[in-house]
């Protein structure tokens, strides 16, 4: 199966790519999709994950053709000196 993987915000900058496609034989969780797309680096706990534009847990199973997106949580209010 083919899964479209998208990276947003600072993740896009770090990874240097905003979209990759991965292929898998077995069903994968969102965290496993990340690992496969990012050289087996484990998915950091704080990263938000979405499947087909729905906010989901990192252990959610992904289906063929799904779009999996990763977002760094944004916390600043730009109030700092």
């Amino acid at each position, binding site marked *: 199966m083919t899964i479209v993987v998208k990276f947003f915000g*600072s993740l896009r900058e770090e990874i240097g790519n905003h979209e990759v496609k991965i292929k898998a034989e077995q069903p994968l969780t969102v965290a496993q999709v990340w690992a496969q797309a990012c050289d087996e680096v484990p998915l950091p706990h704080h990263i938000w994950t979405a499947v087909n534009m729905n906010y989901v847990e990192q252990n959610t199973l992904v289906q063929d053709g799904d779009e999996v997106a990763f977002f760094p*949580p944004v916390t600043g209010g730009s*109030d700092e000196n």
Partner: protein
Amino acid sequence: MNDSSLYRYSRHISLPQVTRIGQQKLTQSRVLIVGLGGLGSPVALYLAAAGIGQLMLVDGDQVDLSNLQRQIVHNTAQIGQDKVISAQTRLQALNPDIQMTTYSYRLEPEALQQLITTVDIVVDCSDNFTTRFAINAACVRHGIPLVSAAVQRWNGQVTVFLPTYSQSPCYACLYPNQEEEGEVCSETGILAPVVGIIGSIQAVEVIKVLLNIGESLCGKLLLLDTFTLQWRTLKLPKDPACLVCSSVNFIREIR
């Protein structure tokens, strides 16, 4: 509403979803803005201009030269002043009809909670997790709507929590691991107009919730990456295991 007010707000009153009745409602509304920085600047300016009757402004910081790149409610002559005073001066000049109360210190959770019970809606423009969680907990507890946003670098996010609706998530549903620290903009930077875009959306959502019109961002998380100019709206469900909102009795009267 006198002639001068009718004229001042005529472009609102012309909107069939607002009209004179809606404008009247805005002039009778009380809004708490926590943080008068990058987000708080456009939020406060637009809500003051829109004629929100009473603004409560909370910020313990003073205006710094490095703020002025994006915190447009303040100006160069006000460096060193309390941000709430600096903002109040600008907002009162913009609209002398509105009333403001300022709190030039970081409010302790109990004081914050007390203040939140006196307002119609809260706008979170703060810069740290501790304040954000305290605001959220108080809003959930007292059933007060919360418009929450954050920005950094080229990115922003904004959402609305309506604790009186049983399906509404809360800020803690988004961050189940409260101990995690995020990046702050003094370290990572922030592109000036990003706060303008996201803060303006916060102001739009405040007006819609106050007037009970349109479709709010409740249950949705709007994300913006200005570098690639991509918007994303994620469906944001309530976390049934949320430590803050799952245990609250939701059968409240909708005000």
